[in-house]
């Protein structure tokens, strides 16, 4: 019973959060500097022409009126039409979701496991030379900007060695179909995935390593040792399990940003993902499209938080349903 109530309460909270995010997004976007009508009309337009464009897209109406009609539309599942692409916002977003997830989800999973594996290996000989070396390397990687790493990889593997393509999603000269298309997309995604994964590894590594080191010095470990358990089984059964919570939390929270968090890397690799869609929408003040992407992002962020809370209650029995 308690469990059901908790779920219900959290779901209501989730909806409320998204609703407020929607209103705040609408206001911020509409009050931000930049006039979509003037941008759409072009540099040589007359004032009369700009007014005609403003009227065409209903931008001459007062903000409260537009807010109400936007909210009513969203409640009916209609995110409106993009000013620039003249397509429904939901279609534009839906097209980009799998393309972006291929990069972000894959790289997050790789980073999670690589970080964890490294942490497990080095923490067993904590503060040894190897451990310090890996820690320092991780710190260096952590401070590398993603776009710079991307450009370096393109320079080395794309231009100098010509092993990987520099950009895009497919080979535009001869695009295959079926299995070949899938292979081609996989091939083009390798460098961006490596870039994204590399910059995320240190996060998981650092958290996992520190927790493992901390857990290994807990009293229960000494107790088990004295009771005659082997180090490896203590590690596997207790230490590792207890150390998983923080990295899993970070991973889950990261999932909130899987849709629009890879914009820089998408730009560098010319990858047609959601981040780039958002950037171009912002530059052209495509209000419906910006709001649609923000809405989807606020939903994913809220959902990620929601799942983290649920996960806690499952993984850690001490967390009460409050």
């Amino acid at each position, binding site marked *: 019973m308690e469990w059901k109530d908790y779920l219900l309460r959290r779901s209501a909270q989730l909806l409320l959060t998204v609703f407020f995010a929607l209103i705040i997004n609408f206001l911020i976007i509409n009050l931000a*500097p*930049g*006039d979509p009508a*003037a*941008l*759409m*009309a*072009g*540099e*040589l*337009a*007359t*004032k009369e*022409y*700009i007014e005609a464009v403003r009227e065409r897209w209903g931008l001459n109406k007062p903000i409260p009126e537009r807010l109400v009609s936007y909210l009513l539309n969203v409640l009916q599942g209609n995110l409106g*039409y993009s000013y*620039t*692409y*003249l*397509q*429904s916002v939901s279609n*534009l977003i839906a097209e980009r979701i799998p393309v972006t997830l291929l990069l972000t989800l894959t790289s997050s999973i790789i980073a999670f496991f690589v970080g964890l594996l490294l942490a497990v290996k080095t923490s067993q000989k904590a503060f040894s030379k190897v451990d310090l070396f890996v820690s320092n390397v991780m710190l260096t990687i952590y401070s590398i900007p993603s776009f710079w790493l991307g*450009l370096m990889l*393109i*320079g080395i593997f794309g*231009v100098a060695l*010509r092993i*990987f*393509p*520099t*950009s*895009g*999603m*497919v*080979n*535009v*000269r*001869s695009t*295959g179909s079926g299995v*070949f298309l899938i*292979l*081609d997309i996989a*091939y*083009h995604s*390798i460098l961006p995935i490596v870039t994204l994964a590399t910059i995320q590894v240190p996060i998981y590594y650092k958290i996992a390593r520190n927790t493992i080191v901390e857990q290994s010095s807990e009293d229960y470990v000494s107790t088990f040792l004295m009771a005659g358990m082997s180090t*490896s*089984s203590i590690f*596997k059964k207790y230490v590792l399990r207890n150390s998983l919570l923080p990295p899993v939390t970070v991973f889950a929270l990261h999932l909130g940003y899987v849709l629009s968090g890879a914009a820089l890397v998408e*730009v*560098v*690799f*010319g*990858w*047609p*993902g959601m981040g*780039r*869609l958002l950037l*171009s929408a912002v*530059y052209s*003040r495509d209000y419906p499209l910006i709001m649609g992407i923000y809405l989807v992002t606020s939903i994913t962020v809220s959902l990620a938080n929601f799942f983290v809370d649920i996960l806690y209650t499952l993984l850690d029995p001490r967390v009460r349903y409050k």
Partner: protein
Amino acid sequence: MRTSIVGAVIALLLTISLTSPLVVSQGLTPKLGGTLVVIQVGDPKSFNPDAQVDDMGFPIFQNLFNKLVTLDIDYNIIPDLAYKWDVSSDGLTYTFYLYKNATWHDGVPVTAWDVKWTFETINKSKGIAYSWIKASNIKSIDVIDNYTVKFILKQPFAAFLSFLGWYGTFVMPKHMYSNYSDWLDPKNPVLQKPVGSGPFKFVEWVKGDHVTLEANPNYFKGQPYLDKLVFKIIPDANTALSSFLAGEGDVLAVRPPFSEIPKLNSTSGVIVRSRAVPSQWYIGFNLLRYPFNDRTLRLAIAYAINRSYVIEKAMSGYGFPARGGYTSAIKWAFNSNATLPNYNVTLANKLLDDAGYKLGPDGIRQTPNGTKLSIKYTYFTTGPETEAIGVVLKEQLKKIGIEVTLEGLEIGAWEQKVVKNRDFDIALCDGFQGPDPDNMRSRFALGAYLNFANYSNVEYYDLLQNASVTTDFSARQKLYWKAQEIFVHDLAYIPLVDLVAFYIWKTEFHGLPWESAGKVNYNSYALTWWEKGKSIEPEYIVFLKNNALAIVIVLVIIIGVVVAYKVTKKKWSGKTTS
């Protein structure tokens, strides 16, 4: 010292690049076949070519559609759908005679009715060319027969043909739009899958990645040489350059960083050509604000700016110092006698001293009103040079006791602050000033939206209005020359740099738009051909050759991951049992 070396290198570059491709192309017969990949920075918006400003769609539309007349690389008016046209002596009636064998890509003939519908819709639905072709000035569009159409204007408009040949004036297929009341109705599939009349047909658009076109075998001016024309979209200039160098593209239409241009030029198999274009960087003063409404101050600032130095420092030497009141790239309209003040710091200082701008204790002048002469330079952050120009201005105006602070804004915010709210001191702007000097009217004159300086000299405005309706060529030229004299006297705006455009492509391609003056529009690849020609190998062999590396590498990685997984699993399970 460094200055002169840079200058020499550029001079050499310009001469080499202007001559070499012609030598290469001569004496070769065009071959059929091949794919040309053009790397460009962004996506088109939709495939209605006349409804929206769409600088990324435009180069694609130029290959998919036709206009009545079009402009070649020198901005000369050349035939397109109309093989000839007559203009009545009063300048009010334009009669166009259309090619009779032109068809839409779905086989329907292109007729005068399409032309009539297109321009009536531009007027009714406020197409993007509405302002510059003066659509409301068109009294009627009469279809004489299926292949003859007559435009009757209310008032003569000298730049009518030039603007018809430019932007937002593509003739569109009436039959694809007739079922929709709005030409931007998102339900109309033709907005995503266009039906044009041009040398290339639409194949696919993968948003954010590429647009693919294929040759139109029934093109009314003859089938193009290439099989396929691909526009590959890469938003980052560095990546675009890498992609070009890695052989993924054949024409680099994303301007690389200036510093990379000499290296590109010395890369074998690559041609870099530059040419002056009718675009300028210019600054404008806020004439609504004291002290910028004082002409003496503006004149002193004009004297204090060394325009050649701006180009060397901010643009690595690529560009020409602006000389007068209009771009020198439109030669007939440019008045070389109406010159901007030449760099002279002593004179600038003297002017300010005499006008009562006294030097303060901190080396910064004060206005006669006693306020500190500290001004803000507002620029948009579209590329590194907009800020770099500001840095140079700051350095140069320091020498005449004026302090400059820089304010960089995203372009939409810049537009709002500078153009709409007039909340600035001096601002940087650029833009295309062709294809006809009538552009000055929509840019700098009284009442023009983009006239952010609020330049309101009535004589200047009258001259441009007059020139706009004057059909006699030399009378019109004189009006523009006079207007430029006033412009450089008033100095509401100071032109800084005449811009240079770069054309970068692979030597194995010939007949590019910029090599085909007088024949095709400045983006059309209708006459472009590949020296390797069509492959004799079967298609699947070509495909495998193109993709072999991809297939091998992906398979190796998949196998590697599986093996690694198996090995670690074994190791782990081995440990547990121990």
